[in-house]
Each structure stands twice: as C-alpha cells, then as structure tokens.
C-alpha cells in the first residue's frame, strides 16, 4: 500500500469510529428456561442455578438465572445467518466494504471481553446496542499489514438496566498468498503432534530399533571392551571397528539437567526436563526426567530408566527418581 492509499483508507474507516450499528435492538427471544436448559446441556454445565427451580429459589440468586456466558445468544440472528449471501445492510457492513476495497478481506477474532453486571432471569427482555468502538493505527502483524477493530455491544433489560458488555476485537488484514489449499484433499482430522522422529542412519539405526523393542543398548568395542555412547563406527581407545553391545540396566544418576520453560513444543510434555544421565555401566545418555516436580531434580539424583511409549509414533527411554 502506498502512503496515499493508507491515508485515504484511514480517513474513510475512521469516519465509522463511534457510530452505532442501529438503535438498541430487542433480542428475538426473551430469556427462557428452555433455551437455558438446551444451552447448558450442550456445554455440560450442571450448575443448578440455571435449571433447578427449587435450588435457585433458596440460593442467593432468588430464582433461576441465565448462564452469563450465554448473553449473546438471546440477540444473535439465528437461522438466517446460515445463508452466506444474506445482505447485512448496516454501518458495520459499510465499513467492512471499505476495508475490502483496499484488500483487507481477512478477519480474525483476537480478543473477547464479556462483562456481566446483572443476572438475567426467565421472562427478561434483552436489548443489544453495538457501537464501533475504535480502530487501531496500522500494524505489522504475523498476518501482514493489519488494523485492530473493536466493537462494543451493551446489553440492557426491559428496565434499561445494564446487564452486560461485550468488547470484541477483530484483526483486519490483507490475506497473504496461500499455498493451494490441502483442505480439499486431506479429509482427515488434524492429528496431535508427536515428538520429532529419531534420525536413523547406518551407525545408529540398530540402537533405535532396540529402543523400539524396549531395550537400551550400549555399544562395546570387541577388541578392548570399552563402552561408548552415542553409537559410532570406531573405538576411541584402540581404533577397532569391531563392536557388539550390552543391555543397560538403566540405573543411573543425574549429571546435569535443564528445565525448558519456553516455548512449549507441540507434542512434548510440559514441564519438560532434559538431562544427562550417568549410567551405572559408565556411559552417559541424554534423556528426559519425568515423574517428579522440576524443583526436585538435582545433580546426583539417583534415577531409574524405563523404555515407554510417549506418543502414537514414539518409544523412548525416560528416567524416574528412585
């Protein structure tokens, strides 16, 4: 966007700040026990203040109340929203059209703040009044050039008492070129992330294959019987390339460790503690410490390893305090 285009866009969109989407509008439905029960049933909310008349009557509420989080449900337009070609001729549509003109067709909800001032009771009317609250200056975000647009909806009842306020912030952005959507070809649900797969090459595949079978092996020089780990082709002591292996008892102690705080990696547990374990056989192994609070881990801590399935794709040794 040129600076001139930016100036022209901003002049036009800022004209909408402070304007309302129409006068306060009464919700299609008054607060009702049926809608409350149906909503609470889906959410799995067994709060008796919402559905148990006797309980509610003797509670501090004095009677049944609507779940506060349901506040918007009374005012939403309902089934007509399912028609994507539905024309919504209001001030917000006008403003969105201006954004569209300049290529800002992307929209992503970023923040939602719901304040609850007063309980709604069955029979109450709900009135909603929405104002375009603010538009940020132009921002550079992960989505590209963007603007944050905030709308504020005030909810009142039949006595014009404040019931709640919803402040909703949306990021408007110019969508960047997407690679051809794989959505059409991949009908399966996104899968839970798994750990990074072990790289298995000529020198170490045998070691990882044994882990898959539940055994942690330690490479041993056939010539001088020196143990070594990680696996490699030649003995550092005598340069023999002949080797075999022994199985570790996985008894050990912590030589060093790190508690990784940030960031969290998809597929990895949190807390995540990575340690160098000195095995009883004399070699060291890098592995995770589990089964205790991070604060309990210390240098010299005695541990016992187990080979375990840690996700759908991965089997690993991990170490527990003795």
């Amino acid at each position, binding site marked *: 966007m040129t600076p001139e285009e930016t100036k022209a866009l901003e002049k036009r969109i800022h004209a909408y700040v402070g304007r309302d989407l129409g006068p306060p509008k009464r919700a299609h439905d008054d607060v009702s026990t049926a809608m409350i029960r149906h*909503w609470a049933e889906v959410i*799995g909310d*067994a709060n008796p203040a919402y559905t148990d008349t006797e309980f509610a009557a003797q509670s501090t509420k004095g009677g049944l109340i609507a779940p506060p989080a349901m506040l918007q*449900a009374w005012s939403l337009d309902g089934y007509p929203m399912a028609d*994507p070609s539905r024309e919504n001729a209001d001030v917000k549509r006008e403003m969105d059209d201006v954004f569209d003109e300049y290529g800002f067709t992307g929209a992503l909800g970023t923040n939602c703040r719901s304040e609850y001032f007063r309980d709604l009771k069955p029979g109450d009317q709900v009135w909603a009044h929405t104002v375009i609250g603010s538009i940020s200056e132009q921002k550079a975000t992960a989505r590209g050039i963007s603007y944050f647009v905030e709308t504020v909806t005030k909810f009142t009842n039949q006595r014009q008492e404040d019931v709640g306020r919803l402040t909703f912030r949306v990021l408007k952005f110019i969508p960047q070129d997407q690679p051809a959507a794989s*959505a059409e070809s991949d009908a399966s649900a996104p899968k839970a992330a798994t750990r990074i797969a072990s790289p298995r090459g000529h020198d170490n595949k045998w070691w990882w294959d044994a882990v898959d079978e539940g055994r942690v092996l330690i490479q041993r020089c056939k010539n001088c019987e020196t143990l070594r780990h990680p696996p490699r082709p030649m003995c550092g002591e005598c340069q023999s390339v002949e080797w075999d292996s022994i199985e570790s008892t996985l008894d050990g102690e912590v030589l060093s460790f790190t508690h990784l705080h940030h960031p969290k990696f998809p597929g990895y547990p949190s807390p995540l503690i990575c340690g160098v374990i000195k095995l009883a056989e004399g070699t060291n192994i890098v592995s995770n410490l589990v089964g205790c609070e991070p604060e309990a881990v210390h240098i010299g801590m005695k541990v016992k390893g187990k080979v375990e399935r840690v996700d759908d794709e991965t089997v690993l040794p991990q170490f527990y305090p003795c």
Partner: protein
Amino acid sequence: MSTGTLNYESVEVGDKLPSVDIEITPALIIAGAVASRDFTPAHHDSKAAQAAGLPDIYMNIVTSNGLMGRFVTDWSGPDATLREIDIRLGAPNLPGMVMTISGEVKAKQDDDSVVEVEVVGENNVWGMHMSGTVRVALPQEN
C-alpha cells in the same frame, strides 16, 4: 456437581483449579453453535470452514466462553457470580481434538470479594485455543 460454594476467605492466590479435558466433536461444535443461536456457516458446514482456510468446522466463541464459565463455576460452586470472561483467542477447536482447560487463582479483590482466575484452554493439536481471565464473585463467610 455438589451444591456447596467456596467462600471468598477460603480461596488463596496460587490455588489451582482441577483441569478438565473436553473432547471436541462435531456434535459439540454444531450443537453449541445452534444452542447459542449462531448459524454462521463455518460452525456447521465444513465447506464453509474450508473456504475460510480451515480443514473442518470449528467451535464458536459463545461455546468456548460457556466452557470457560462452566470450568470456573464447577470449581466455585453455584452461589458464585460470574463477573467477567476476558480472553485472547488462539487456534480454533476442530473435531477430533481434545481441549484441556486449566486455571489458577491469580488475584483477590477484597472490596467486592471477586477472585481473578487465570484460565487457559489448550487443544492437543494446535495449542492455545483461548487464554485469559475469569472474574468471579464469591460469597463471604456467614
């Protein structure tokens, strides 16, 4: 749920709420949208969700808020009063995912006996779905 309610004095900053796993199914996404009167196509029509760049239908905000509110009042008890749910929105919840909601008491406001709970809803595929603060007023002792 038990019908006892925590009183303000018994809650301490640092108290952790028992976390809950929510299985995200097509039924939950669609029924949640319908029960909140939100017929936006992306919540019930996978083709519409795909046109918006996602592989499948996704949960609407009223449902997400509802789960957050339930999470806190399941812990507090029914005589509590939800005052605010203030959240940042992250990755959407799609069918097949599991969302784990966890929370911790972050602050107490003595003048109106309101407890501030930091809540996080993370799904097991894309991570943070929503995170923020729920403020709930608790009854005082006696």
